[in-house]
C-alpha cells in the first residue's frame, strides 16, 4: 500500500468509527473525508484524461454522508443480505463513487489510477460484476429509480428492514422512467425508499431550466405522494438530519441543492465542466483550492 493510500485508509477508518458513534463530530469528520474524495476525484480524472468532473464534485458530499454515516453496510461483505441498498443512478459520476468506495474499504485505493485504462475494473460507468459496493450498473440515465423501487418492494415482500437510497441527477429527471417509478413508489407508500436529487441546475449542454424545466420540482413529487425535503447538499449536518431518520409512511424525496464543480473556482457553476478534463496547471490549482 502506498503512503497516500495508507493515509486515506486510516482517515476513512477513523471517520467511519467516529461518525457513527458521535452525532456531534460527524459533520466535521464528513467534511474532512469529502475533501479527500474531491482530491481523489481530481487526481483520478487528471490522470485518466476522462471523467465527469462537474457532477462528481457536486455529488461528493451526498455520497460521503451516505457511505460514512447513513448506510448500513459492511465492506467485508458487500453482498450481505441485510445491507442498505444504494444506487448511483447518475452513473457517469462513477469516479466520485469509486473514490468513496476506496475510502470506505470496498476497493483498494491503488485501483483509482487504473480508471479507464485497458482491462481496469474501473470503467467510465460503474459495473456491479466487477466492483464490490456497486449495487447496479448505471450509465444510461433514468434507470436507477425504477430499480430502487424494486429493491424497496423486495424489502417489504421479504419482511427485511434494509432501506434503499438512490441518487439522481436533476437533468436525469427529464427521463420519463423516473415519473413512472415516482408514481409506483407513491402509490405503494414505499417508506423505506429515499431518492436524493443532486440539484446542481445543470445537465450536459445547458441549465436544466433552459432545456426542459423541472420546477416546481418539490410540488411535483408531493403530488406523486412523496415526503419532500430540501437541503443544502454540501452541508453534512443538514444532509444527516434528513437522511438519518427511520422510514415513515411515504417515500422520501430529498432535493439537495448543490453546485456543479463545487470547490474549484474555475469549474463551479459552469456547464463547460460537465466532462471537460483539467489541464496539468488547472489540476494543480484545483487540488490546491480543494486541499485548503
Amino acid at each position, binding site marked *: 500500500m502506498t503512503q497516500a493510500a495508507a493515509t486515506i485508509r486510516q482517515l476513512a477508518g477513523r471517520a467511519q468509527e467516529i461518525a457513527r458513534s458521535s452525532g456531534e463530530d460527524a459533520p466535521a469528520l464528513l467534511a474532512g473525508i469529502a475533501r479527500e474524495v474531491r482530491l481523489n476525484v481530481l487526481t483520478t480524472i487528471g490522470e*485518466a*484524461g*476522462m471523467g465527469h468532473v462537474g457532477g462528481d464534485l457536486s455529488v461528493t458530499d451526498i455520497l460521503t454522508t451516505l457511505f460514512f454515516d447513513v448506510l448500513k453496510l459492511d465492506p467485508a461483505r458487500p453482498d450481505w443480505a441485510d445491507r442498505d441498498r444504494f444506487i448511483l443512478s447518475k*452513473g*457517469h459520476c462513477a469516479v466520485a463513487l469509486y473514490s468513496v468506495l476506496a475510502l470506505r474499504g470496498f476497493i483498494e485505493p491503488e485501483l483509482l489510477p487504473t480508471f*479507464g*485504462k*485497458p*482491462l*481496469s*475494473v*474501473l*470503467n*467510465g*460507468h460503474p*459495473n456491479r460484476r466487477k466492483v464490490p459496493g456497486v449495487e447496479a*450498473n*448505471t*450509465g*444510461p*440515465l*433514468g434507470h436507477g429509480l425504477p430499480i430502487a423501487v424494486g429493491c424497496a418492494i423486495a424489502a417489504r415482500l421479504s419482511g427485511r428492514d434494509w432501506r434503499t437510497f438512490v441518487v439522481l441527477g436533476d*437533468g*436525469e429527471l*427529464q*427521463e*420519463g422512467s423516473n415519473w413512472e417509478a415516482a408514481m409506483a413508489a407513491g402509490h405503494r407508500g414505499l417508506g423505506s425508499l429515499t431518492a436524493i436529487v443532486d440539484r446542481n441546475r445543470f*445537465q*450536459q*449542454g*445547458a441549465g*436544466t431550466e433552459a*432545456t*426542459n424545466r423541472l420546477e416546481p420540482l418539490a410540488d411535483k413529487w408531493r403530488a406523486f405522494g412523496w415526503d419532500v425535503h430540501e437541503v443544502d447538499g454540501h452541508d453534512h449536518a443538514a444532509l444527516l438530519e434528513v437522511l438519518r431518520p427511520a422510514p415513515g409512511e411515504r417515500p422520501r424525496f430529498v432535493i439537495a441543492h448543490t453546485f456543479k464543480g463545487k470547490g474549484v473556482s474555475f469549474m463551479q457553476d459552469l456547464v463547460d465542466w460537465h*466532462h471537460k478534463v483539467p489541464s496539468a496547471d488547472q489540476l494543480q490549482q484545483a487540488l490546491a483550492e480543494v486541499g485548503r
Partner: protein
Amino acid sequence: MSAPVIAEGMFDCRKAFAEELIALARQDQRIVAVANDSVGSSNLGAFQKEFPDRLINVGIAEQNMVGVAAGLANGGFVPFVCCASPFLTGRALEQIKADCAYNGYHVVLCGMSPGMAYGELGPTHHSIEDLAWMRAINDLTVMVPADPAQTRGAIRWALHAKGPVFLRIGRFGVPAVTPEDASFEAGRIYELRPGRDVTLIATGTMVSRALEAAGQLAAEGIDARVLNASTIKPLDTAMVLKAAQETRGIVTAEEAVVEGGLGAAVAEFTAQHHPVRMRILGVTGFAPTGDTAFLLDHFGLNAAGLAKAARQILSH
C-alpha cells in the same frame, strides 16, 4: 474519455454530417434537428447558432424525442433526430417502430457515435445492438456510411426518402475510402476492390480495415474482393449473390454484435440462395474497459482479424 485519434488523413464523420445538414437546411425549410441534451456531442452547435428555432432539444428524454419527431414529420417537417446511438435505438426502440416506421413517417434517425466509439464509457454506451434492432424494423432503411463523402451522400439521400431512415454516424477516425464526388445510393453495396478468391464485406469503420486486410492478403497471393456495405437494409442481394458465386467464401465485419447485423443479413440471404463458407466478425460479449482502438483490436476487428478469417475460409 480519450477522443478517437483523428490524425492526418483521418476524419470524424460527425463533422461532414453537421456541415451537410446545415448546407441542406439553408435551402430546405422543412429540415429540423431534434436532440436530447446532446447538441455538443452530436456536433450541432453551428446548426443551433444558425437555426435556433429549428433545433428542438427536448432534454434527456429519448422516447419523447422520437415521438416528437414523428409529430413533426406529420406536420410536414423532415426531422433529423440526432442522439448517441445506444440511447436513440435502445431507449426509443418502440417509438422508432410504432411512431415512425408503422406510421410511415419520414423521420431521419441519426445514431451518433455508434459501435465502440465511447470506448471507456463502457458497455452501457457501446452501441452494438443497434444494427440488429434497426434491421428488424419493417420499412426502415438502415445506412452506415463509411467516410465523409458517403456521410454527405447518405444525408442527401435521406432528405428525399419516402419513409423512415436510420443513419449510423461514426465518431472514430476513418480515412476516405470513396472520392468526394462519388454518387451515393441507398440499397447498394459498393465494390472497392475486385478479387476472385474471397470476399470481404465490411461496413462503417471496418471498411478501411478490410481494404488493409486485402493488401496483406495480396502480399500472400490471395486475391480478396472488398465490398462496402453502406446500406444494410435493404440488402444489395445482387452484389452478395455475385460474391457468393464468384469467390470461395465471404467474411463480414461490423462494429456490432454478430447477431442480427450485416453478417446475419448476408448469411440469411446466402443460406437460402447460394450457400457459401462464411465468417462473421463482430463484437462478442460485453467489452472490458478500454478505448475504442483497444477494443476493436480486442475483438479482432482489424486488418489482421479479417485476413485471418479469409485464410480460414480458403484453407478448407
